[in-house]
């Protein structure tokens, strides 16, 4: 099985930044309520940064970090604490979805219209190539009814 689990640096930085400013505001509020003034020092900011980085990493690992493994038979996707494994033949249709800002995902549809999304760009996979590869995996299996009968829901 091929496995990819790249560090999603944007999500990690967003989490750390959010926590850094959140903790700073919380510190300011507590100071003001207790002392009627806000105490700030560069050592305090450094400490806040370290705490934010630690908490941010923990939050990122639990919510954003994605590990994706696949071969010709099936795949396994793990995002944060949730994990899903499935076979390509469980799906009938494949699409490429533009999520905005140049980010793409590959969507796998079941006959009933339910779908699963693989965040190809976040996983540092070439979305176009990966889409065609997944199509071959799915096409190698039995096809479902055509779109006229059941179109994938958008």
């Amino acid at each position, binding site marked *: 099985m091929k496995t990819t689990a790249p560090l999603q640096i944007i999500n990690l930085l967003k989490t750390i930044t959010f926590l850094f400013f959140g903790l700073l505001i919380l510190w300011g509020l507590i100071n003001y309520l207790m002392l009627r003034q806000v105490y700030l020092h560069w050592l305090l900011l450094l400490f806040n940064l370290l705490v934010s980085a630690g908490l941010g990493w923990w939050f990122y690992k639990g919510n954003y970090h994605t590990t994706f493994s696949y071969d010709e038979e099936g795949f396994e996707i793990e995002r944060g604490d949730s994990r899903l494994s499935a076979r390509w033949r469980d799906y009938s*249709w*494949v*699409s*490429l*979805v*533009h999520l*905005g800002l*140049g980010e793409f995902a590959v*969507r796998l549809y079941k006959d009933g219209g339910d779908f699963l999304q693989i965040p190809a760009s976040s996983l540092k996979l070439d979305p*176009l190539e990966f*889409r*065609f590869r997944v*199509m071959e995996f799915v*096409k190698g299996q039995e096809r479902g009814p*055509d*779109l*006229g009968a059941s*179109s*994938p829901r*958008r």
Partner: protein
Amino acid sequence: MKVREYLLKLEDNLMTGGGRWVADFTESFWELPVGDTAFDMLILGRTRPRGFLLSRFFSWIVLPNYPVACFAYSDDPDLKRLSPSLKAIAEYRAKEEMPWAWLVIVNEGAFSRRAKALVERNDTKEIGIALVDLASQEITASKSYIGRRMGRIAKRFK
């Protein structure tokens, strides 16, 4: 240029390039049967872009939000598959409540004179048709507004 290469460029143009000025095309299917007809590519979108904060708010108050699509198939210089394709598109549009759609027919050689005349005469407002001859880089579009718009988009990367 091969058909597949052209369709990849068309897909990229609609999803991330100039096509976004017409609609927010977000999802693309390849080798997809619709009714009794198989299309090489189908790209779905909506007329309201997603945007962020202010642009999202303005598009929400100003722009209508209905689904649109671009269908594409290839290797039909005499347009023998045009009629069943238009029927399949009409059924799909009715089912998805889609006001208009594009149909792009790509060929690695010239289209017959009759085929070009047929498309040029077509003034259906709901379906814009464009014939793309990859050998001569010639684009023939139907004369409706939607058709002329598709003709301009298809020309951008000939």
